């Protein structure tokens, strides 16, 4: 296959766009998709202080690499989950990336804090992915607030978001359908704006970008994610995508044109936000879900 824009051999074929690209033109395509996402959803403003949530995986490191290359003021924020060798390796990837590019990485170590994810999941008898998401969200919000960041950027890609939308639709989870936006506004006094600039790019495209640009990431899946429903949704969507290219793209992106307004969070609910009595972050209850999780685990 030849690149659709020149005569070089293609390094990637994008069936949903009926196109193949060489490295140079794939890179151009990749940046265009990020710029379009950022512009369409008004993700950044001048002088933003950006906290990039990094895991050591391809998505977050590619995102950090790109936002830094755009001249944005970025700092990485990594939560070490306390999942043995996997966490050690991923932390090392983050450290090396930050060092190579002369960037700052804030590291929160759950082992040092006394509540690694395997212990929390076991003590609360909850699904590890669900506990992990809750804990990471808390620290992302808290660090962003404490350190005065104006926006939090995450590396969620098209596959992540299509799978999440798919899961929320299958369960008709209207509360979470209302939070699908790739630019979630500030909430209360402590929750910063959250953006997902990779929303238009598939996992394969992000991995290809990392490969082609020598971004060293941890390719392993989290050992605790085996059997996670999100992976099953991705598998199902990839099967559909193989037979009907463009399915994921259409399903996710058209949600915002055709359905998102039906699930918008009602303004009146925002009045109910109060400060968590334990950690001081915004919460709908006297004690936030993170602090309740900690109480349960003790």
């Amino acid at each position, binding site marked *: 296959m030849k690149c659709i824009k020149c005569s070089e051999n293609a*390094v990637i074929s994008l069936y949903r766009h009926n196109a193949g690209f060489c490295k140079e033109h794939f890179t151009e395509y990749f940046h265009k998709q990020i710029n379009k996402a950022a512009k369409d959803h008004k993700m950044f403003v001048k002088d933003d202080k950006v906290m990039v949530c990094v895991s050591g995986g*391809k998505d977050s490191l590619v995102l950090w690499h790109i936002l830094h290359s755009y001249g944005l003021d970025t700092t990485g924020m990594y939560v070490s989950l306390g999942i043995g060798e996997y966490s050690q390796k991923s932390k090392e990837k983050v450290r090396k990336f930050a060092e190579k590019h002369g960037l700052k990485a804030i590291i929160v170590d759950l082992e040092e804090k006394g509540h690694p994810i395997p212990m929390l999941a076991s003590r609360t008898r909850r699904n590890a992915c669900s506990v992990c998401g809750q804990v990471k969200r808390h620290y992302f919000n808290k660090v962003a607030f404490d350190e005065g960041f104006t926006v939090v950027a995450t590396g969620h890609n098209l596959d992540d978001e299509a799978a999440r939308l798919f899961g929320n639709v299958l369960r008709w989870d209207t509360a979470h359908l209302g939070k699908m936006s790739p630019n979630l506004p500030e909430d209360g006094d402590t929750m910063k704006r959250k953006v997902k600039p990779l929303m238009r790019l598939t996992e*394969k495209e*992000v*991995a*290809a970008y990392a490969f082609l640009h020598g971004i060293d990431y941890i390719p392993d*899946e989290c050992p605790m*994610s085996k059997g996670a429903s999100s*992976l099953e949704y991705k598998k199902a969507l990839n099967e559909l995508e193989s037979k009907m290219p463009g399915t994921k793209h259409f399903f996710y992106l058209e949600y915002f044109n055709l359905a998102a307004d039906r699930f918008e969070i009602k303004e009146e609910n925002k009045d109910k936000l109060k400060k968590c009595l334990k950690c001081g972050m915004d919460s709908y209850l006297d004690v936030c879900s993170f602090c309740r999780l900690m109480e349960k685990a003790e």
Partner: protein
Amino acid sequence: MVTIEMPDGTVRQSDKNRIKDILKDIGQNDNAVLTVVDGCLVTPDTGVKNGTVVKLISVVSGG
């Protein structure tokens, strides 16, 4: 025969000579992997000779 290094470290063999056919032969979805031959990314229509080693890199993450 073509040798395929799978993302989990295992090795498979295929008697097909086109990446697309090889992936189908081993039941691997093209959307879930990068395909690397001689250190370069290749597209599914790429033909490979007998004895070639094809490396697959998983692109799926999350939980």
